[in-house]
């Protein structure tokens, strides 16, 4: 019996449900505009099918779960089946619909925490693969994205192996906690025996305080100077992998995805004077404006301040993005989420940032940025302890395709 057959057992009932609910689900999609998130001003979530995964260029939602998995299937057939299952679940969970009825033949097919029908248009699912998936277990070495490596230990890192890496990474985004949790529970149930959670972190974005870009837990607006996601040429140059050598062709439409779990030592930070805080970032804490400007979106004029008298040369924004011709192609598309996971052993808050970013080239973009940020003054107040390098797969283009297309060619 093939792995595919083996795993279709749980899906069988659900597939029946899907077939019966396509029309209803379509209606749900069209009504996504009237969801509470949209009412609050957030743009509607794009459809699941597309050249690229929907979340990459979409504005982050209010809640996220980032989870890395180790694949425990035996053989490539079962791995292909895992990707089919992940695709089916992602499609169903994002599209919504009635949960199938299994009568007396099984326990309920759905946890029911979102009610009898799964709402459509509320969820984004992003799936990525890590370098370890291409080791000798499944014979995938020749298919590995050329730039995909295991995330190294950077000089200011304090990486905990239990919080690092993974064969797969899954990011779920929605505006409510129950939506992302329902999705994780559903996906875990349907992939039981095929993958195990290695680590997971829940995160949230904050509303504008009072306007503009969200603030991180150090109180600073974070992610102001992102590349323009609506500029297709810029995205082609900075985000999307094009599948040309040395990349394997299948990677076209995907993007390198970095996850960094960064603890923020907020008690220490709160004991730092405002001038020093602002000089570390290079921005005003209140407005988010660069220290030589007045408004959040003002562009810092580094050429007028070569000595760093106004915006220190060591400040975070100046190191991260020097805005020179040479570093222009090194920009990254940031997607930050805050996290809050309780207390540490001395009674301080264990909170911080789930830093994620997309880019075309890990060396040219994330690693070059990271290199410039090495030993920046801010490193005393933050501690990167986890995350990993992944490749966000190309989008699933239609109902006949799967995330796992690349291992079936």
């Amino acid at each position, binding site marked *: 019996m093939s792995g595919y057959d083996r795993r279709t057992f749980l899906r069988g009932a659900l597939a029946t449900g899907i077939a019966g609910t396509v029309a209803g689900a379509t209606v749900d999609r069209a009504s996504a505009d009237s969801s509470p998130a949209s009412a609050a001003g957030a743009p509607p979530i794009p459809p699941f099918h597309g050249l690229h995964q929907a979340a990459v260029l979409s504005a982050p939602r209010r809640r996220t779960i980032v989870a890395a998995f180790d694949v425990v299937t035996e053989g490539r057939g079962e791995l292909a089946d895992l990707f089919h299952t992940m695709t089916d679940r992602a499609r169903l969970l994002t599209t919504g619909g009635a949960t*199938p*009825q299994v009568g007396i033949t099984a326990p309920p097919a759905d946890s029911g925490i979102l009610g009898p029908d799964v709402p459509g248009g509320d969820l984004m699912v992003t799936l990525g693969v890590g370098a370890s998936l291409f080791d000798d277990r499944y014979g995938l070495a020749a298919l590995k994205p050329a730039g995909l490596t295991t995330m190294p230990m950077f000089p200011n890192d304090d990486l905990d192996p239990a919080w690092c890496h993974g064969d797969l990474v899954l990011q779920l985004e929605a505006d409510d906690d129950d939506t992302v949790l329902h999705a994780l529970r559903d996906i875990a149930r349907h992939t039981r025996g095929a993958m*195990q959670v290695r680590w997971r972190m829940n995160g949230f974005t904050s509303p504008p305080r009072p306007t503009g870009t969200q603030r991180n837990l150090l109180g600073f607006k974070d992610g102001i100077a992102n590349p323009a996601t609506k500029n297709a040429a810029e995205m082609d140059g900075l985000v999307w992998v094009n599948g040309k050598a040395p990349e394997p062709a299948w990677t076209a439409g995907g993007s390198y995805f970095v996850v960094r779990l960064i603890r923020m030592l907020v008690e220490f930070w709160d004991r730092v004077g405002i001038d020093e805080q602002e000089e570390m970032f290079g921005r005003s804490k209140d407005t988010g404006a660069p220290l030589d400007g007045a408004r959040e979106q003002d562009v810092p004029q580094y050429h007028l301040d070569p000595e760093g008298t106004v915006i220190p040369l060591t400040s975070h924004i100046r190191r991260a993005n020097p805005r020179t011709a040479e570093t222009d192609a090194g920009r990254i598309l940031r997607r930050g989420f805050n996290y809050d996971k309780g207390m540490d052993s001395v009674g301080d808050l264990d909170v911080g940032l789930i830093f994620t970013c997309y880019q075309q080239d890990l060396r040219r973009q994330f690693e070059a940025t990271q290199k410039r940020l090495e030993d920046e003054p801010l490193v005393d107040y933050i501690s990167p302890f986890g995350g990993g390098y992944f490749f966000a797969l190309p989008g699933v283009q239609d109902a006949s395709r799967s995330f796992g297309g690349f291992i079936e060619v």
Partner: protein
Amino acid sequence: MIASSLFLVAGCSDSGVKAAAPSTPAAGSPIQISTSHCGQGWTHPAAGRQTLTMTNTGTVAADAYVIDVPGGAVYGEIEGLAPGVTRSLPIMLGQGTYAIRCQPEDGDPLVGPSVRIGGTDASGPAAVPVTYNDLYGPTKQYQEYVAGGVKTLLAKTRTLTSAVDRGDPKAAKRAWLPAHLAYEKLGAAYDTFGDFGDAIDGLPVGLPKGVHDPGFAGFHRVEYGLWHGESMSSLRKPADQLLKDVKGLKADLPNEDMEPGDLPLRAHEIMENTLQFELTEKADQGSGTSLATASANLEGTREAVDLLRPLLQSRYTGLKQMDAQLDRVQRLLDAQKHGDSWTPVASLDPSARESIDGAVGELLERLAPIATICYPRRTS
């Protein structure tokens, strides 16, 4: 519960049945459940995912089933519908002939008029109900299995107790595992043996002083002492008490009636316990034999499944895959057995541990339908 039913009743008058409409109540008045009008009111049978509403118009509580005609397979059920109450039943129906079967609490069942649904849609999954009578034989056989296992348990516990009594810690440690496994193979889970279960295999959880609590008894108490260097003389009392409780269990067995519904539950609950207490190593008191316990639990699970197999053969479409998963878990556990010793869970390499956890998780998903399918239902 009642409030939500009323909402559905109110809502059902203005919406027609559409195959694709999620959870849309059926058109028309509710279907009647009673001894005089069973199944009446199902006036617009339609294909697709839908919600039927049923009202008990009789004077006694009744179970209501949507069945296949003439096969009798159940597509959906409402258990214990009280007189005057209306409840909804989400269901997936395709081409075929169906009827409502009303099963009053203390009377004979009635089957309502047949209704036909045309088209080419497929129905949701269905199964012919398993009756109390069907479960009588397997339950009796399981009790015989337990009775046989308890004899082995008693013999092996004697070996353990006498090693403790003569003050031989090496022999006692050697004898502990076989005796404990004899118990674990019985497939006890969730209060199976009542007070004897706690006395023989209880954990220190819930005891105010934990492992030092005078109420901590049984195999794990002896295990704690043996693997924490307690003196043999101080272990005599718990070891003797263990033997006494095993004897008590053996003597009590003939008086213990097992509910027919218990065996199907056992099919997944034994391994639920394994996942919760053994693979987490919560139960371990120093011997590091959680995987040996897991393997014994798997044996108990197989026994339960095999006794139910004749009932499952025609009812559970995932049986073959479940068997394959039982084998997979067995294989992964066997790989951690080295002669008479087992890898402690904490010493497993992370990928081996993930494989075992994942495989047991999947096995549980595949065992769980057995409890639903074999839940005893009255058909006469």
